[in-house]
């Protein structure tokens, strides 16, 4: 038995890095410390895709890695509008090869941000993002606001490690001297802990943000007695707490990005932060979901100029979520082949888009079988990043941390698989060019 410390969790955007595990016979047998129940479940493992496979006459037939990679390359090289989607639950090293492949075949490359915090990115492109690292919150924040976010269910260690419950330099008494405000439609487990819970009418976030802004700027007289199901009195109380805080932080989740007004809700949340900043220190941060969704946004940005929904069909990057984002391409039936890596649109995309995905050739790269496997035409199993493979990832506050390899595996890592496909695609294209001459 070997004990491994400082293990980095590859589940959610918290990327906890103080986990201790026990490894025996090349298997994680115990998670001793640090991980939440969701992270623990990830580290302990689940049933795997056992072999590369290619679909023939409706069912998957096992094959070698070489055969699957070759088949994948043939599909992609022949496509006129291929989509390369996923990238958030793997390491940056694999993402980089993905961007290179997208350029090589004139593909659209998109990542899970487009159905998660893509709207937050659009909002940042409109107004910017006054933010900080999670350690700043831990050391300084005396007012924590979770808006449309339920960390108790989605980021179980978040409050303990970084925000409301954590202890830091100016917050050594933990939650005792902090205030927690929760804004949500439902009284969630997080809401039950709050000093102030604002139960908002579904879909009215935008109006409430604008009301808060008007109040923060001193125009409370124009604000009506009730906005979005919240009384003016409660809004004024919240504004008072914001102004009196020494360091405030708003964490927002998909309660805001998934609802009507989408990215403009976030624009307004950021504008509210800016308004609060005229009184005191105020920051805002998206609660990123996957452990490396921030990372693929980073890689895609430094390599193409844009974080997601990038169309390279003309050889240069055209960026336009809402047009070349995965859901739109699929609902509009625009793409003719898709590579899905480290994500599961079969489970997480609207049915309308899955319908088209099920009709076109799909290559899936993933350690685990999932709904997407049900219609994938080429299935390539991958090593689990953070357990069987190492590499760089970016936490929700864009801090880069290197995942550790805990056990050996015979599965290929995402990066190797992607390099294999890129190599095969280049071979096909090279041959085509010789034939043209």
């Amino acid at each position, binding site marked *: 038995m070997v004990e491994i410390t*400082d293990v980095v969790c590859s589940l959610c955007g918290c990327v906890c890095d103080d986990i201790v595990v026990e490894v025996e016979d090349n298997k994680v047998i115990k998670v001793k410390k640090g991980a939440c129940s969701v992270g623990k479940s990830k580290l302990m493992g689940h049933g795997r895709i056992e072999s590369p496979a290619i679909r023939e006459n409706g069912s998957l037939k096992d094959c070698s890695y070489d055969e699957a990679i070759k088949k994948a390359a043939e599909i992609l090289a022949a496509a006129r509008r291929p989509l390369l989607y996923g990238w958030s639950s793997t390491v940056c090293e694999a993402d980089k090869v993905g961007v290179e492949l997208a350029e090589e075949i004139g593909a659209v490359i998109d990542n899970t941000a487009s159905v998660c915090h893509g709207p937050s990115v659009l909002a940042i492109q409109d107004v910017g993002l006054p933010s900080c690292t999670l350690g700043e919150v831990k050391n300084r924040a005396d007012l924590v606001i979770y808006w449309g976010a339920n960390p108790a269910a989605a980021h179980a260690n978040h409050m303990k490690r970084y925000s409301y419950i954590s202890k830091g330099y100016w917050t050594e008494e933990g939650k005792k001297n902090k205030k927690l405000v929760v804004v949500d439609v439902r009284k969630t487990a997080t809401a039950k802990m709050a000093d102030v819970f604002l139960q908002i009418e579904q879909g009215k976030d935008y109006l409430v943000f604008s009301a808060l802004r008007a109040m923060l700027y001193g125009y409370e007289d124009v604000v009506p007695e009730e906005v979005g199901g919240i009384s003016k009195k409660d809004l004024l109380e919240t504004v008072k707490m914001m102004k009196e805080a020494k360091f405030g932080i708003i964490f927002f989740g998909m309660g805001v990005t998934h609802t009507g007004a989408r990215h403009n809700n976030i624009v307004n949340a950021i504008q509210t932060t800016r308004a609060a900043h005229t009184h005191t220190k105020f920051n805002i941060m998206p609660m990123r979901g996957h452990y490396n969704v921030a990372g693929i946004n980073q890689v895609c940005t430094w390599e193409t100029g844009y974080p997601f929904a990038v169309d390279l069909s003309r050889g240069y990057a055209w960026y336009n979520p809402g047009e070349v984002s995965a859901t739109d391409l699929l609902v509009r039936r625009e793409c003719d082949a898709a590579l899905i890596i480290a994500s599961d649109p079969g489970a997480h995309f609207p049915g309308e888009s899955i319908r088209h995905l099920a009709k076109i050739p799909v290559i899936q790269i993933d350690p685990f079988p999932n709904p997407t496997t049900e219609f994938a035409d080429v299935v390539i199993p991958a090593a689990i990043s953070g357990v069987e493979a190492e590499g760089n990832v970016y936490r929700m506050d864009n801090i880069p941390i290197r995942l550790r390899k805990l056990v050996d595996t015979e599965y290929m890592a995402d990066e190797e698989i992607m390099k294999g496909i890129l190599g095969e695609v280049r071979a096909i294209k090279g041959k085509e060019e010789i034939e043209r001459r």
Partner: protein
Amino acid sequence: MVEGELLIRNGVVYDPINGVNGEKKDICIRDGKVVEEVRNPKVIDAEGRVVMPGGVDIHAHIAGGKVNAGRLFRPEDGRKGREAKTKVCRAQSGYSVPNTFATGYRYAKMGYTFVMEAAMPPLAARHTHEEIVDIPILDNAAMPLIDNNWMTMDYVKSGDMDLLAAYVAWIIKATKGYGVKIVNPGGTEAWAWAKNCDLNDAVPYFDVTPAEIIKSLGEANEKFEMPHSIHVHGNMLGHPGNYEVTTSTYDLVKGIKPYRDRPTMHATHTQFHSYGGTTWGDFESKAGAIADYVNKNEHVSIDLGSVILGDTTTMTADGPMEYSLYQITGRKWTNHDVELETGSGITPFLYSGKVSVHTIQWAIGQELALLIKDPWKVALTTDHPNAGPFIGYPIIISMLMSKRRRDESAADMHKAIYDRAALPSIDREYDLYEIAIVTRGMTAKTLGLHEHGKGHLGVGADGDVAIYDISPEERDAGRIQKAFLNTKYTIKGGEVVVKDGEVVAAPAGKTYFVTPECDPKLTDEMMDKLKDKFEHYYSVTFANYPVQDAYVPNPYEIKAPWRS
């Protein structure tokens, strides 16, 4: 580096480090290095053309968290510089915040082969290195921010310079960094509470002053054989009347003896620190006062931070400064404070020749270059992208070389340039030798890179060469600008990477980093305190903090022994 021989024949060579001033000379390269002679070389005919060593940029923001945040929040900048991929080049985007590939290609086209990333937040150092690896052609290094760190301030307060040096050594090693970067010392920590610090204000809760931080880091730096001095972005950047803070900052390290023949402080983007007046209303140039100081003293070198008119993306670890700027413009604003260490702010900005303040700023950068007598104290920069994108360097070169061009430009600008700036009254024009100094000789020497093959063409130097398609007699500013934008040839490590303004090869560059070698006992003593910081205040563990070797696949290590 490529194997084989190359002969650059009959060029007119400007190699200031070796005192070569416009001599017709052959350059011989074998296996990537300059040699005495070659036997069976590939030949490049440079007859009558200007030949210089590869350019060395001492200060630019090209890689890392805030650069990428700048790209991310400016898709409108991204679409300005789009170019489709080619057989050699990856797809390009961006003007003021180009993608990593465009950054490499565009610098190489201007004849540059080394660029220093000027600000690396230690906690996010892996990010900087990931991007550096994706910048083709160029060799790079990055300077970690060490001045607002709680560890630094603790030791400044206790006055324990040896332990401070031990921490400085550790963090440069942990980040695979190049030297000590200082940005608004104390002010960035204060900004975590939405405050700022002037040079002699006490930093909230830490009870030290920015002046003490700068002086202490200046001393700590010289305890090692560091190739570069401390690299300082002082307090009150961009504030009217800040020139006195600037010279007071220079004074802080006057008594410190450098380990070798170089200044003890490099003061960066000095344009932003040379302001007179009390408000934007009576704002005026004080470049003369700064130049006067630099002329009279030997312990300070500067770079310009010269303004390029047009739209750009400002970004700095100086969070409060970016906030002020955003309040002026009302445009988008990103801020990212980094726990226990530093911060950053980003906002787009348009420099307009119709606005009095911008016009004066535009003049100040050039005044500094022209009023400081010794070009070995001056580096050409735009603090890319803060005062303008690096792609504007050829414009500045043409301005420095042509009084006529400066006068023509001034005539189209706000008339404040005649009342509150000195530029129109300055007659000096740079020659090509001086241009070579401020773009490669001085920068390589100030960074200590001349001892590692950069910035010159002496035997043993790297085979990094720029061949510009102009004759030494050329005086036409337009033709000068054009030639410096796109070389006839750029050669990197003996390989032709640019030909006739097109990138023809894009090899990977190297990452330069310094390893200060500290007394192990001091390191151990420092470590207790450091580990405590990680245990209680950082959000990552001590073990997961240092940059792993995997992030530096093409390393070039420079050792900096302890000076006992």
